[in-house]
């Protein structure tokens, strides 16, 4: 059998390749599986990284280090938005619990993501939960004033 390179595999159609054994799958099918597995792994890793980031923010806020939490959040969003990674920002927004964040961190998240609102499908949910949380903690009038230009 003639050895062929990985690059060459991509140029061979399933018909040309044909089955390699009784239970064989085509190279194309195998590559699809590899791609799916890689995507699932990357998704799991990203979810795990977001979980760690959320926990870090919650712990910093609970420990009275809200300035550090705010800066971490602003820097993260700045980097993701500059890179066009809107899906990462959106996923994080959808998972953050405003109740476990200091008000400045909640408002920092809303401030940074406001201009990209159209590209962040889950931002609306975050706004709604942020509104409830700030209303309970700061009172209706103050919460409304703080949220006025950031919804």
């Amino acid at each position, binding site marked *: 059998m003639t050895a062929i390179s990985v690059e060459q595999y991509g140029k061979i159609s399933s018909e040309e390749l044909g089955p390699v054994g009784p239970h064989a799958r085509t190279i194309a099918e195998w590559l699809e599986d590899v791609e799916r597995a890689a995507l699932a792994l990357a998704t799991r890793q990203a979810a795990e990284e977001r979980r760690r980031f959320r926990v870090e923010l919650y712990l910093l806020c609970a420990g009275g280090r809200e300035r550090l939490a705010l*800066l971490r959040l602003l820097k993260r969003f*700045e980097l993701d*938005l500059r890179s066009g990674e809107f899906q990462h920002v959106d996923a994080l927004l959808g998972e953050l619990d405003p109740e476990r964040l200091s008000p400045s961190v909640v*408002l920092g998240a809303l401030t940074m993501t406001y201009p*990209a609102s159209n590209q962040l499908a889950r931002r609306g949910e975050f706004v709604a939960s942020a509104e409830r949380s700030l209303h309970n903690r700061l009172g209706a009038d103050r919460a409304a004033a703080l949220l006025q230009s950031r919804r």
Partner: protein
Amino acid sequence: MIRGIRDCTDTAAVVVTRGLFAMHAGIAYADQSGAFHLLHLAMHEELAVTAPTDDWMYAVSALDDVDQLVLAGLCELRASLGRHVPYGFRLDVSKFAEDDGRFVTGPGEIGLTCATFVIAMFEWARVPLLDRPTWSMRGQERQEQDRAAQRQLVGWMAERRRAPPNHIEALRQEEGCVRFRAEEVAAASAMSGRPVPYQFAAPAGARLLADFLLAGI
């Protein structure tokens, strides 16, 4: 309305000092450790982060404490993103790209002044200071004063080569555009009812300037 910078208890506040030919403005912010820094556009492509000194005074902020925290966070973020903010007089739509802190000039605009840098930072934080379109109602005398101040500064920058020749020429083209004064920006930050229109900010700025001069700094 204004106090010595050493007495500052705000997390983020507008600060003023004597500039080359007029007042100079910036933002004082406390970092996460509580240490104060001054963030100000000192000159073309010279965004400065300096320690507070006694020649600065701050306007007691009327911002909610939480707004101050967000503004301070953005100042710290902005300071970490580099010093390259170009100098320019006209501010219509230029802004810090609200999603990532880069400075983006609007069509026909070339940069910011010390005062419009502060305005842009507050707008990035979603707490606009000035009702900018109302500055178009300033009178003839004021317009002439502003044009003269702009011309004086451009002359100084050209003489000292503080910007490339093509940028100096672009600045000359902007002479006569609306000029927001440092003292107006500082005064507005101490007022409720933001964004503050010209008819309130201008006299408040004049009072703040008088207070600064009376303080003998």
